[in-house]
């Protein structure tokens, strides 16, 4: 076991598409001898790009401002771990610093796109009645999954008993609302942390950002802002799937 471990460690990649890539690039380099092989490898490996899917352009501060993403809750509801992301309080209402939100949002989108590109399953989670159907519709539209109903405690931790047969868990969870309808932390966040599933979550000024792997500090109660996030996530998943299809076709 240790032998295979050390042998696989340096160059082997899990993803078949990436492995195909390397052979493809090597073939290319044989036909076109002008370019350096190492340069091409660096150019072509998706993880070596800072923005392989060009998802960072999807987020703009102005649109977020117009979508009311900067409004937080009353200062008495503030979670103390959210203070680094706040701009200040105006008339006792917390205002979120969107200049800090935008890079975090871009990083989260990049990770989401990479997971989708590698064939991972994404689960969109929300417990907000107002936008529940929108989330489900969006997830269905892009070919991913959504969980917007009451969270049974065993959905992740006791899947086989609840579903009845072995089930594959998602590779990434996107929380559009990281609280339950009773303004408590969403139990799915803890379950994801237990079962080694990374999470992307929109955290308002009253949410706990500690267990969210890629937190996005922004307003999660306004209809306009939720619609905006859904649009951005949808475009990201579409871009990543398109890229995956293009790259697979290019290899054939």
């Amino acid at each position, binding site marked *: 076991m240790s032998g295979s*471990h050390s042998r696989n460690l340096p160059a082997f990649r899990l993803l078949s598409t990436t492995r195909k890539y390397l052979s493809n690039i090597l073939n290319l380099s044989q036909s076109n001898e002008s370019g350096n092989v190492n340069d091409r490898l660096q150019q072509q490996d998706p993880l070596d790009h800072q923005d392989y899917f060009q998802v960072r352009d999807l987020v703009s501060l102005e649109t977020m401002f117009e979508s009311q993403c900067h409004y937080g809750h009353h200062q008495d509801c503030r979670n103390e771990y959210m203070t680094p992301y706040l701009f200040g309080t105006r008339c006792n209402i917390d205002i979120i610093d969107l200049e800090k939100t935008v890079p975090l949002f871009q990083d989260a989108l990049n*990770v989401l796109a990479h997971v989708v590109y590698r064939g*991972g399953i994404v689960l969109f989670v929300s417990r907000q009645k107002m936008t529940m159907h929108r989330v489900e519709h969006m997830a269905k539209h892009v070919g991913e999954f959504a969980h917007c109903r009451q969270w049974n405690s065993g959905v992740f931790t006791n899947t086989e008993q609840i579903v009845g047969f072995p089930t594959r868990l998602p590779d990434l969870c996107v929380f559009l609302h990281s609280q339950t309808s009773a303004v408590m932390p969403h139990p799915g966040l*803890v379950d994801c942390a237990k079962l080694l599933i990374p999470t992307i979550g929109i955290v308002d000024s009253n949410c706990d950002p500690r267990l969210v792997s*890629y937190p996005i500090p922004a307003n999660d109660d306004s209809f306009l802002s939720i619609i905006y996030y859904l649009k951005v996530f949808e475009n990201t998943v579409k871009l990543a799937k398109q890229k995956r299809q293009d790259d697979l076709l290019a290899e054939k």
Partner: protein
Amino acid sequence: MTMAGSRVHRHGTIYKRVEGLIKSEALQWKDRPLWFDIWKKFPPQVEPKEDRPVPNVHVRKILYPEDMVRAKMQEVYEVTGTVKNLRTKWKGKSKNQLFVEEYVRLQKPGLSVAEVFRQVEQEFRARGQQFIRKPKNVLHNAEETEPQNEESKKS
């Protein structure tokens, strides 16, 4: 993988726990989770672990110099018109905002607040708009008392 992983979510991050499994060879490198390479390349800005110190950040109050004018307007005038409507995409300025801007333009070091208020009111009346004063007007009383003081000083 899920069976091998520790279900204690309070210690470390999910990345560190998977890394530990790989180091101890409980999890083979080829069986590592799909997100592992992505996290390694693009780690979160802040480590998402539950046991971390509370950030010692002071949240400031957002205040502007012209907030004094806004507060004074609340005392002097009746509330008329729309303050702010979140649902419309109207990007014009509200009547109160126009008043504040006019105040900032007209104010000078020598003028008292009451005089600038009267000037701004006249400007708006010339345009056909008016601000309705409250019955118990704070500014009006101040105006009446000022000349008396000056007279008493002269005598």
